[in-house]
């Protein structure tokens, strides 16, 4: 299945796009989505390893199952304030 992952901040700059669509198996976990993202976008592979995935606006445990229409977002190092 295809899952769209929103990008922000440095990761968006590095990829040059505000989202990326990754291909994962049905029943994939948050960790699978992050893995697919790192493979598909080598320029942010290191950042992805240190980042968290948000699913529908909440930080997801690594084993959380992701569905095709979930809103996924890569949350790397934040810098508010």
């Amino acid at each position, binding site marked *: 299945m295809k899952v769209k992952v*929103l990008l*922000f*901040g*440095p990761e*968006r*700059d590095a990829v*040059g*796009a*505000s989202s990326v669509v990754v291909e994962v198996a049905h029943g994939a976990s948050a960790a699978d989505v992050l893995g697919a993202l790192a493979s598909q976008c080598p320029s942010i592979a290191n950042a992805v390893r240190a980042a968290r995935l*948000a699913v529908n*606006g*909440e*930080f997801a445990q690594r084993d959380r199952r992701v569905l095709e229409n979930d809103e996924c*977002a890569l*949350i790397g190092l*934040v*810098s*508010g*304030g």
Partner: protein
Amino acid sequence: MNTVANDTPIITITLIDGPLGVSCAALPLLGDGACTVGAALKFEGIVRAQEGERVIAALNYEAYRPMADRLLEQLAREVCIKHGLVRVAVEHSVGRVAVGECSFRLTIDSAHRVEALLAMGEFIDRMKIDVPLWKRPVFHNDVDERASHER
């Protein structure tokens, strides 16, 4: 106008487009609860002229909403309860904030100073780890960087 009923903490989260002007979120408290406030603490984060080695013109803030709003609210509620605060008001900019302008304001009202100071440090530390907000420097004579990301 904020009035305080019982011991319910007052929490307000405001994300504003552009620099924060004079605070509207953190007007003085009225009502019974106001008399329990002995410490009113306010932090303002101002955009500095220098980012690392380079002189900048502004910062461009970006938020992942509504997740950012919700996490700010949750964080405010947690420090309120942990430290027994009367009020926490959070204001944060989204978009361009020029050097010298305010991009973040945290207002804490509590009975005593100690818990207000502790809660303030804690809130900001945790915000900078958990809340999906980002800033990007804007240099003098930059073309607007934002456009290049909208492709």
